[in-house]
């Protein structure tokens, strides 16, 4: 009973928040709605008994990823309204729905045939975090290490890409300096 109430409540909230994210024309509304939706999604993980995954969802998504996006919003000019493509709305909604149903069918088709055997079965009297740790550091050790290397590469590339010329501020320079700066950049792009 309570599970059903929680499921429907959080499903409604998540869909509403992500709808706002997709449909609004204000970038700030989209960011806050996305952050709220991420937290509501972690509620599903808690309902499903995946406590560690829910905690990671809160820490990584609404902590790290949202902070990065907030930094990006401060950097870009997001105060003006976002212009949108003027396409056919029915085609967009129809295509999105059809492809989503297709993806879920692809995921769910092996489940319907009922020939799935649990590879790493859940043991009943052990906590979720402990189980996740055991499976992650025995069966999934190599993917774990590869993911660590991938995060390291992403960090280095982020520093190198974003850190270039961070000491120059376009807002604090005079007009002539900004013009020179842009001409230099154009030369670099053309050469």
């Amino acid at each position, binding site marked *: 009973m309570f599970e*059903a109430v929680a*499921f429907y409540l959080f499903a409604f909230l998540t869909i509403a928040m992500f709808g706002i994210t997709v449909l609004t024309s204000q970038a700030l509304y989209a960011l806050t709605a996305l952050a709220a939706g991420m937290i509501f999604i972690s509620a*599903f993980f808690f309902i499903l008994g995946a406590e560690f995954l829910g905690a990671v969802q809160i820490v990584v998504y609404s902590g790290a990823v949202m902070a990065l996006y907030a930094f990006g919003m401060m950097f870009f000019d997001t105060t003006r309204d976002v212009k949108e493509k003027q396409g056919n709305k029915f085609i967009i909604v129809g295509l999105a729905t059809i492809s989503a149903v297709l993806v879920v069918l692809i995921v769910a088709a092996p489940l319907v045939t009922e020939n799935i055997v649990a590879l790493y079965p859940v043991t009943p009297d052990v906590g979720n975090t402990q189980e996740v740790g055991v499976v992650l550091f025995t069966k999934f050790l190599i993917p774990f290490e590869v993911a660590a290397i991938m995060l390291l590469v992403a960090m280095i590339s982020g520093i190198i890409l974003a850190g270039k010329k961070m000491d120059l501020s376009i807002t604090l320079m005079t007009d002539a300096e900004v013009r020179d700066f842009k001409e230099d950049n154009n030369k670099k792009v053309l050469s």
Partner: protein
Amino acid sequence: MEIGLSHYLVLSTILFAIGLIGVMRRKNLLLLFFATEILLNSVNIAFAAISHYYGDLTGQMFAFFVIAIAASEVAVGLGLLIVWFKRHGNIDLDSMSTMKG
């Protein structure tokens, strides 16, 4: 009323459709990234639900790796966006047509 696996799969479908609508109608690249995050999260819900209803931990493991990939995607993507913004002053998708024939 009992909540089954199909409930979660339907919810995942709806969220995936919302994310795809965002990918198709957005022009600003930052908001396009938001829609990508919605896609990844909807798939995470499906993984966690299947993992719970089949008593198997593999789904949760895949969700962890999806989260790691999303985090690194955001770092690299925002770095590229900052470089593009410094060069051209906007992050509209239509301005990136230098490879058009």
